[in-house]
């Protein structure tokens, strides 16, 4: 894709100005959305029927102790003041202390997040590797058997509960065929070895074991991650192939494609080079969005596969009424979600001149 460059300096200055105001607007949007995110979690935290004082001090605390704690936690202040304190704490990275682990929530989240990141990254890679060729193939022969098949596989992805697909995968590939590792990140024996020999560098088990050159642990980790990543990757593939198909169909009807064909450019080059290059930008935004949706899918998938990531952390916290941890985890997921959304928006506006008007 060629960028439209204007030769006169006035145009450049105007563009720079609009770029700056665009950047400011982006920052303002980000700040407003983040503040809204905090407001939602704050309100949810306040309507919870669990008394925070009671859950900290326990049932046997005296009236004076309760009153003192209430004062200390700022629960007697007006709501808006409480919200101000909440925002200030959140901005300085203080999301409270988890009741379950008695550690700061942020520290917990930092510990579990890499596992989720690793899982969703591999899932996205799988989704892209299979989704884009499938979508292109479907678009080049609309109505053909391949097209119908791609549509059907995509539609099935929109209709299957992710936790059920995970369970079926475990049943078949682990229970019956024994091709992959079961739940968890490693077999129990390898888990002990990993604790001794693999220093935690990134928190992502594949990278850490590779760095430590523990290849048999790496292999075991790979056998464990492949099934949950494929399950998540299936959903990402369903979305990516559907969008690729529709973008590609639109491109293949354009005149420059006819021109290329008339010039005698081989068909594979027309499709895979000319057309594909022009759908690259919308495709990247779709991939960023599917990455964000995987965060959501990971809550259920991690429960099924006992995967020690953010999703499992949030659900475990939920069941022990560990509200600080639930809200902290929700804020982190929401923030990543917002950033990915903005990133895809930004890419779209930056690289697609048509979207700038």
């Amino acid at each position, binding site marked *: 894709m060629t960028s439209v460059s204007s030769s006169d300096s006035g145009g450049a200055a105007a563009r720079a100005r609009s770029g700056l105001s665009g950047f400011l607007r982006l920052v303002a949007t980000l700040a407003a959305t983040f503040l809204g995110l905090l407001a939602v979690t704050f309100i949810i935290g306040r309507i919870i029927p669990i008394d925070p004082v009671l859950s900290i001090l326990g049932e046997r605390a005296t009236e004076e102790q309760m009153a003192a704690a209430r004062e200390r936690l700022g629960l007697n202040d007006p709501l808006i003041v409480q919200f101000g304190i909440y925002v200030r704490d959140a901005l300085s990275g203080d999301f409270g202390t988890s009741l379950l682990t008695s550690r700061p929530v942020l520290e917990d989240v930092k510990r579990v997040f890499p596992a989720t990141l690793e899982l969703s990254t591999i899932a996205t890679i799988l989704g892209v590797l299979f989704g884009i060729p499938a979508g292109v193939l479907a678009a080049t022969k609309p109505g053909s058997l391949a097209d119908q098949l791609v549509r059907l596989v995509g539609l099935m992805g929109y*209709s299957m*509960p*992710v936790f059920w697909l995970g369970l079926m995968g475990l049943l078949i590939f682990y229970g019956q065929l024994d091709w992959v590792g079961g739940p968890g990140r490693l077999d129990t024996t390898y888990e002990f070895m990993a604790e001794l020999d693999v220093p935690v560098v990134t928190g992502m088990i594949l990278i850490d074991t590779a760095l430590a050159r523990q290849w048999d642990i790496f292999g075991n980790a790979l056998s464990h991650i492949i099934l949950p990543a494929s399950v998540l990757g299936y959903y990402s593939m369903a979305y990516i192939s559907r969008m690729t198909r529709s973008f590609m169909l639109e491109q293949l009807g354009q005149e420059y494609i006819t021109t290329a064909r008339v010039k005698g450019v081989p068909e594979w080059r027309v499709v895979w080079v000319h057309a594909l290059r022009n759908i690259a930008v919308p495709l990247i935004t779709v991939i960023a969005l599917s990455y964000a949706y995987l965060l959501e899918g990971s809550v259920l998938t991690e429960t099924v596969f006992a995967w020690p990531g953010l999703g499992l952390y949030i659900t475990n916290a939920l069941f022990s009424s560990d509200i600080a941890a639930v809200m902290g985890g929700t804020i982190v997921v929401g923030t990543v979600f917002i950033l990915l959304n903005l990133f895809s928006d930004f890419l779209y506006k930056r690289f697609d001149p048509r979207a700038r008007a």
Partner: protein
Amino acid sequence: MSVLSREWLLDPSPKSRGQARAGQIYLGCVRLFRNRLALTGLIVVLALVVIAIFAPLFATHDPVAQVLQDRLQRPLSPGHILGTDEFGRDIWSRLVYGSRVTLYIVLLVTLTAPVIGLIIGTVSGYFGGWTDTVLMRITDIFLAFPRLILALAFVAALGPGVENAVLAIALTAWPPYARVARAETLSIRSTDYIAAVRLQGASSGRILFSHVAPMCLPSVIVRVTLDMAGIILTAAGLGFLGLGAQPPLPEWGLMISSGRKFLFEQWWVATMPGLAIFIVSLGFNLLGDGLRDVLDPRSSGK
């Protein structure tokens, strides 16, 4: 004149508004039925409704009665076509009664979320200015949350249960409808007939609810049918996590979660409810795709 003949329906110069509308509906149905996948979807959805209404006729056993000597029977064993669960309850009968829970959740969400979205979207688009900015900012904030996680947080606050699950899903499902309704309102706002109504002295409320909102309905309805599968999946997910329907209610997600404990020995307990969810969601998706092609020809084939 024979009413409801093909000629009467397809009359190019209809005598009344009713005749024209009937003709349009007839043409839409023809187009929908010609699409074999959409027809399949319609049949699945109708079957779900019939089974839910006449559940006692389809069920072979009491869905909650425990018969411990019959526990964990294989599928196709005598009297239990899909087998039994860990309490000896017939899985087929539980699925049949579970369709009521599923339909109940879907109906409640689709009756609330689109209405919230429609009100916010039309108000936002019609008044513009600050109202628009504030309402759309709020919509964006809700859109920025991953739906399931926001629903989780709401259920965490409200406590588990079917009604709270419905509330949580509705609270997370309205933003897309608001977006759609706002986009439609923006183009309707500047039309001549709205200007005419305004000159006649109609109040803003009257214009919004009698003239703008009805025009937004078709696109909102298309979105609703496309969203139904998503609602079913989210509800099942909440049930699976133990945050939706509570035992002994035969909710499908909850049934999968209880079958998970003996997945490798008695596979059918977790598999069957999942198949039910899959078939019903697929039905709604196929029907939604077909309806979109009929009601919104612009986006057909995509």
